[in-house]
């Protein structure tokens, strides 16, 4: 993949990843893939009204989750994700069963209490701000958390993720303007995972720009396009970009080329597609060649997670739905319920 870097990032991204880290990444990629496949199975069995997620983006999203500085408050990273970041959440330590609860819209769903679609996370204690179905406002909302972090000092940054099609929205352009203001450049890592699709519309027919990352050039934003299907490349590049944003307190635009393995969502059938590169298969081939894992070990791992989540599915199915009369709860937050840091 080519680079459009204007200035060299502060750390050369050529370090070797340890075998332990590679195995951890693999484990999380498998877990994430199995979770998404379980969610699709839930949808097809009638245990959820709608599925949308990120199978095919694990090679990028797992390293992203491992590198986020997770915590509460301005010294930790603020995460403005979109609905394809399930692997990022798992890498941050989220419980996959909670995603299944949101899929089944149960009262026990900790992200929305059964109010929102699956993979629309919200974790106050980890600075994971509410995910919305609307495309792209996270880029302008991220400006606000980054403003607060810039003022606070330290190394906390704002991470925003979105897809390629959404960059056509004005909010993406707004973000490029706001994060690169000479009066106050902002510590934002802007991620675009480019799967070359906008629901059913191919990127190639709608976008004349060769690379989305090229748009950063006009604003003096450090920018790069990488192979997001390679977890080692992703880990190194995210790490370098984050280090730049943390230390320079300036934005970085990172475009990751990824695959979309089950279409846009259940609206397009949620069926496996054959003509896209599968990052997990590619990574497993490497791990096997390097003798870090055998095929049998990898099959066993997948089987273990599949069994765990199948069992969790049975339990989640029994959990209560929210009560209808709860709709008026939490329209506003009472002053006495404001937690520290709000």
């Amino acid at each position, binding site marked *: 993949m080519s680079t459009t870097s204007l200035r060299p990032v502060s750390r050369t991204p050529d370090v070797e990843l340890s075998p332990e880290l590679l195995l951890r990444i693999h484990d999380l990629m498998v877990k994430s893939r199995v979770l998404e496949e379980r969610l699709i199975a839930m949808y097809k069995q009638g245990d959820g009204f709608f599925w949308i997620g990120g199978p095919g983006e694990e090679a990028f999203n797992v390293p992203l989750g491992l590198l986020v500085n997770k915590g509460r408050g301005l010294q930790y990273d*603020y995460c403005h994700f979109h609905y394809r970041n399930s692997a990022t959440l798992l890498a941050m330590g989220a419980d996959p069963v909670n995603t299944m609860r949101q899929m089944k819209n149960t009262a026990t769903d900790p992200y929305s209490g059964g109010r929102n679609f699956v993979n629309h996370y919200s974790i*106050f204690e980890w600075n994971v701000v509410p995910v919305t179905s609307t495309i792209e406002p996270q880029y*302008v*909302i991220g*400006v*606000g958390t980054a403003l607060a972090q810039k003022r606070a000092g330290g190394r906390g940054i704002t991470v925003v993720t979105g897809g390629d099609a959404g960059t056509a929205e004005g909010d993406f352009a*707004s973000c490029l303007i706001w994060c690169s203001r000479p009066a106050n450049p902002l510590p934002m890592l802007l991620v675009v995972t480019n799967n070359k699709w906008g629901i059913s519309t191919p990127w190639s027919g709608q976008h004349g720009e060769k690379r989305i990352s090229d748009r950063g050039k006009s604003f003096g934003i450090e920018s790069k396009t990488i192979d997001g299907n390679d977890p080692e490349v992703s880990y190194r590049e995210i790490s370098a970009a984050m280090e730049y944003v943390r230390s320079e307190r300036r934005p970085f635009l990172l475009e990751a080329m990824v695959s979309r393995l089950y279409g846009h969502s259940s609206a397009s059938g949620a069926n496996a597609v054959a003509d896209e590169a599968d990052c997990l298969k590619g990574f497993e081939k490497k791990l096997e060649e390097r003798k870090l894992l055998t095929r049998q070990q990898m099959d066993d791992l997948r089987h273990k997670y599949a069994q765990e989540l199948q069992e969790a599915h049975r339990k989640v199915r029994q959990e209560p739905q929210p009560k209808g009369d709860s709709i008026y*709860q*939490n329209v506003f*937050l009472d002053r006495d319920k404001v937690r520290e840091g709000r």
Partner: protein
Amino acid sequence: MSTMVQAIRMALHVAEERHDLTDVFGEDVGPPLGGAFTATQGIKVAWNSPLDERGIVGASIGLGLAGCRNVAEIQFCDYAFNTIDLMKLAGLQTWSTNGDWNCPMTIITPVGAGIRGSIYHSHSFDATATHIPGFKIAIPSTPRDAYGLLLSCIVDPNPCMFLVPKALMRVRSQPGEEIPGEPGDERALSKMIDAPLGDRAKWQPQWPDTPDIFIPFGEARTVRRGRDVTVVSYGRTLPSCKKAADELGQEGIEAEVIDLRSLHPYDWPRIRESVKHTGRALFVNEDTEVTNFGEHLIRRTVEELFYDLLAPPRLLAGAFVPGVGLSDSLEMASVPQLPRIRDAIRQVAQQQA
């Protein structure tokens, strides 16, 4: 005796000094201009943003999520219509997460007609604002209410909208309605907190010592007592309703006038009590009349007070046309004016059931 714009400025100063207000921002909000209406002159935490309303509202939400109490200005509400989905998002942060997040933020924006602002400086926003659940919405008609309502918005942990009737921005407090601590002499106050024309580089405001006043949301104010008809209004049309009621008093028609002050939550108990007493109700505002907030109040009046009514409740609002035309005659015909308000009150008061 402050104007509304001076009262807003003093409230912002109190909030930046005592209530952790971290940011006041928008187009031309920072120095040297200090706001298109001068409402942010001398505010230390005021800064200029790009000319980008979606960026302004988005940044406001993000600051709120980061725990920063902020006031984001849309220079005219006419330019807020492309931000409505972001406002929806702001109103959703707590509900969609079942109480996990909250978002302290205030959107301040001038609304309504009255300054011959033509099509794109005369829109109202109350009908739109009241279609966005999750916001608390204030609209003052006096400088003191502007001061106390804005402070309530700023310290609230939820998204708030502060709609400023632009026609009332230069109107001064009535005697007895001053903000405690402000100089009684308008020239003295101006010298203290109005930036001079020309070079302002070395100018520093001298703020009067004004207290915390928090006017609660949902607490209307009865500005005139009366037995014959209840008139519920807010914003620009409120002073006209009061004046019309005073004039009709000379005809023997005693109208009770209620200034709603906040549109969500709103003071239904006060409306109910008054209408039960008078049996007649007129709702007056200047937003377009179809799916108007006054229609909601009429629906509730009919549903809950039907057997107390002596005449059909009525709405006097803006004409349902795409804009307010520039010509004087067009603006006068588009939004309620004193003569039409007076006639409407009289008709409701005298209509036989």
